[in-house]
């Protein structure tokens, strides 16, 4: 594998541990009256693998879209640190593979480079390397419908990473996969990340997934979406299957699960609070 050479090149540009961005009092409301996020403060460091964990409706995906610049906050600020973020510095992986069904695997992964004006020939080495990284060498000419769900997701990840983004945003990417495929993809994502240490913000509603992958877990509560509490996962990388069966992992999962449980209760408290004390709760 040609992994080591690349990771050195990438490591030169990044300074892990430095702040990459701050969300400062970010709030987002929609025109239909939904308050998706309220007063979210969050710091993301370079090289973080940060999971946003929470029940549906807690604004995880909204937060991701705000960071991606696909949507603007109602109030508050997304404060970027370090060199300005360009178009190719953010990769996005959606919940669905979101591939172009008419295009080959190669063409799908080529897309972000192509939109920057890179010809097929110029993009080819990068695409080939990224496909190798996600284990899809030999499938360049397949079209998405010939691939399994897990492979489609690998293509989607390769597409997200092909521009060597400094920040990879992932919106419940493995939620629709079966558990075996999901474990495998968790594992492979982690090994790519361990080599390159780009920053990842990973939206999930799976406690196990968040504990296995991330060094920081931000638990969110719903209605309105807000940060409930942050947990850090101290277990060292590289993590492999033995981590999944370690007592540490079990304890961390239990703890995270408890916090998530509290966050869900906090939902009901908040709802009860607005119903009792506020006039706009009744519609």
């Amino acid at each position, binding site marked *: 594998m040609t992994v080591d050479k690349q990771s050195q090149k990438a490591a030169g540009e990044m300074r892990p541990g430095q702040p990459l961005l701050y969300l400062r009092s970010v709030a987002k409301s929609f025109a239909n009256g939904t308050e998706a996020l309220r007063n979210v403060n969050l710091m993301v460091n370079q090289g973080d693998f940060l999971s946003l964990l929470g029940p549906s409706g807690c604004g995880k995906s909204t937060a991701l879209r705000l960071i991606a610049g696909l949507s603007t906050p109602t109030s508050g600020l997304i404060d970027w640190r370090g060199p300005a973020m360009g178009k190719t510095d953010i990769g*996005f992986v*959606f919940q669905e593979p979101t591939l*172009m069904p008419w*295009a080959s695997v190669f063409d799908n992964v080529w*897309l972000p480079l*192509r*939109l920057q004006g890179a010809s097929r020939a110029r993009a080819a080495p990068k695409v080939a390397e990224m496909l190798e990284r996600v284990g899809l060498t030999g499938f360049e000419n397949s079209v998405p419908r*010939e691939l*399994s769900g897990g492979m489609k997701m690998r293509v989607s990840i390769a597409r997200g990473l092909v521009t060597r983004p400094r920040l990879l945003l992932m919106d419940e990417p493995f939620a629709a996969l079966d558990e075996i495929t999901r474990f495998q993809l968790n*594992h492979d994502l982690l090994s790519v990340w361990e080599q390159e240490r780009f920053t990842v913000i990973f939206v999930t509603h799976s406690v196990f997934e968040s504990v296995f992958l991330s060094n920081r877990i931000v638990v969110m509560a719903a209605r309105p979406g807000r940060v409930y509490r942050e947990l850090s996962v101290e277990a060292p990388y590289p993590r492999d299957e033995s981590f999944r069966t370690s007592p540490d992992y079990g304890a961390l999962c239990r703890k995270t699960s408890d916090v998530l449980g509290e966050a869900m209760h906090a939902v009901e408290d908040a709802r009860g609070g607005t119903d009792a004390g506020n006039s706009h709760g009744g519609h």
Partner: protein
Amino acid sequence: MRLKMRGAAQMQETAMAVTEHPDNAVVIDPEEAGRLRAHKLERIGRWALPMLIMALAILAWDRICVWNEIPRYILPRPGEVVATLFQDSAILFAALGVTLKITFLSLGLAVLGGVGLSILFTQSKWMEMSFFPFAVVLQVTPIVAIFPLINIYVNDQTAKLLLCAWIVAFFPILSNTTLGLNSVDRNLLDLFKLNGATRWQTLRLLKLPAAMPYFLGGLKIAGGLSLIGAVVAEFVAGSAGQSSGLASRIIEAGYRLNAPRLFAALILISFTGIVIFLVLTWISNQLLKGWHESALKRDH
């Protein structure tokens, strides 16, 4: 160790992606064998049955003519129609050429107009809101009712016919393509936006390919409609002008009680319609092969 595991998983996934070959030497149980037989029969039946019915109908037609001694100027025997098709082939095929010219020109213009307008619509919601209703008005007004106006304002015979056939044919392309361009995956649109795609890139790399199946669906309808449009236009114009398409031949044959030629012309028109439909279906399948559900062969 880790790499090995990944390799194994990859192989597992590879196996999943391999397409199944039905003719592999596997043991076939009676149920599967029955299904296979039924499938084969169905494939033959799909062609053979309509042919058989057709043959029976032609035979019945012939017998009815003979048994009831129907005169040839009312209902000619099928053999005579075929003979006429050959005898009058010079006139008939020249006429067919004229009709085909109008049909294909109007279909071409319908594609240009329909796709062009729908691209315009997808660039601006306001544009779509403003102009789409008028396209609907144009579509729902019977062309026969509009024709007298066209007859007044347009002098050139070919232009008249073209305009008529175009009005009939362009709407399915416009409405289908517009629907297709508006049905692009939202996430893919976001991805393009995120990567700073220009309007043109989004159109060329995303919207147009995504709209392709819809456009081709519209094209199939428009193909038939442009032939109908060409013939109807000729019918209406024929009494006024000196066009020599198939429709004029039919009218002429009708006046002269030349029923065999009338039937022969009719057969040519419907045959042309079938060919146009088959060709467009084939083109559609070729273009969508491999990715769109409509062009996929089903295994079961």
